[in-house]
């Protein structure tokens, strides 16, 4: 494919510098020899290829993702950040996939919840700072408002230790991204019992509006020609159903 004209707004052209918090196998994680791998890497590579840029993937903690972006340490946050209106006021966001939350229990758990409320009074492990934590706290509040016992929410800095806690029966359930729950089920000992909760768009986040526009165009092209779906299918992830556009401080959007 022919290369488009020069790309504006990069911090160190011709590199497309992306940051990820590699704590979400199989979507983004580090292999035992230290390579960042997973679906998000493939996505980033494909975007860079279409823009004739060299992809660079950095690994960082979740807390640093936003700050590093604002401080021009990287161009893109490519870590499966959930789209929220609050974040869209802060950064240029490009929703391109849908993620949902699963609730995992131990294989031999006596609980058979049909809905989230059935876990009332249980202890729930979540990773700090994720949308999982956000929804867990929301659901907890809802339960308490209904005068039922809430959740005992335990925030871990790392979803791996949250699942270790589940296996050690230190918590009753873990809230996690669908894909992570599936991955853990493969490992054995735990099973997702509720899936597809709170489907939420997941976005790339950028600082530079022009660059964001370019990336949105590329992603839209990928969605149209089916690349996006082909890329995501093996991971059990679905693309954003509608048109992929930028939503941010410079692109007021009517989508929310």
């Amino acid at each position, binding site marked *: 494919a022919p290369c488009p004209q020069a790309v504006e707004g990069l911090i160190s052209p011709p590199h497309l510098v992306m940051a990820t918090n590699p704590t979400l196998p199989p979507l983004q994680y580090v292999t035992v020899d230290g390579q960042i791998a997973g679906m998000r890497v493939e996505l980033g590579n494909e975007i860079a290829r279409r823009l004739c840029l060299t992809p660079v993937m950095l690994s960082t903690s979740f*807390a640093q993702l936003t700050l590093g972006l604002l401080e021009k340490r990287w161009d893109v946050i490519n870590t499966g950040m959930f789209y929220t209106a609050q974040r869209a006021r802060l950064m240029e966001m490009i929703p391109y996939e849908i993620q949902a939350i699963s609730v995992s229990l131990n294989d031999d758990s006596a609980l058979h919840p049909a809905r989230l409320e059935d876990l009332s009074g249980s202890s729930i492990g979540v990773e*700090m*700072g994720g949308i999982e934590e956000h929804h867990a706290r929301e659901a907890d509040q809802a339960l308490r408002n209904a005068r039922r016992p809430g959740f005992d929410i335990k*925030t*871990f*800095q790392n979803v791996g*230790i949250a699942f270790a*806690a589940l296996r*050690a029966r*230190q918590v009753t359930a873990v809230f996690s991204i669908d894909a992570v729950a599936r991955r853990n089920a493969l490992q054995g000992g735990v099973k997702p019992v509720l899936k597809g909760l709170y489907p939420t768009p997941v976005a790339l986040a950028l600082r530079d509006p022009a660059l964001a526009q370019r990336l949105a165009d590329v992603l839209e092209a990928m969605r149209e020609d089916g690349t996006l779906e082909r890329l995501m299918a093996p991971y059990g992830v679905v693309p954003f159903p509608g048109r992929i556009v930028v939503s941010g401080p410079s692109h007021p959007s009517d989508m929310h």
Partner: protein
Amino acid sequence: MQIWSWHGFFTYLGSPYIFRGALITVYMTAVSMVMGFLLGLLIAVMKRSQRRLLSWPARFYVWFFRGTPLLVQLVVIYTGLPKLDIRLSVLACSIIGLTLNEAAYLAEIIRAGLNAVPTGQIAAARALGLSERQIAWRIAFPQAFRLIIPPLGNSVNGLLKTTSVTSVISMEELMQRSQILVQDQFMVLELFSVAALYYLLMTTAWDFLQRRIEHYAERPYRRQQKTAAVEAIELPATTQDAR
């Protein structure tokens, strides 16, 4: 995004959520310091023992617990013990981990203090017929304690901040709560300034307390300065006497 929000700063400063986090930090520090001191005392005494059966386990303990990270110790206690069907609360796990870890460091401090008690004092106690146990409690520990206070104070300062490692097993102390709130508004500097302020308050309060304890323990070792000054002034007169 502005650089600094005073509004945010004061909101967090007044937040009961953060305040309770600080209380938890103080509580964990106090409990694991006291228990770690007792355990450390035991280990220090064991390590000084002539009997290998006592000294070798103590040596191993210190080597192991000083040599491995607290984070690992906490995770093993939290996720490993349940495999032996011992299931403890996050707070209990945190305090156990902090205690075991701190004891290793305190044991070395206490041992140094005991070593610094002059052997002549021990010999004098022995010559008076005191039993080894009486010598330990009445002579060695009280004299060592005074020497131990400054490094002990350092340990308290360190432990106040080390407690934040317990966040790895989801303990919500001051630092963890600050980090949880960071996710909400991204006011990193404001929140962490509040946290730093709390820590400064705690360490300053401790420093004050430590000075009081030191003052008390140093009492027998001050040449009662008031009297000494009087003596010095009177000396020229008294030296005329039979001295």
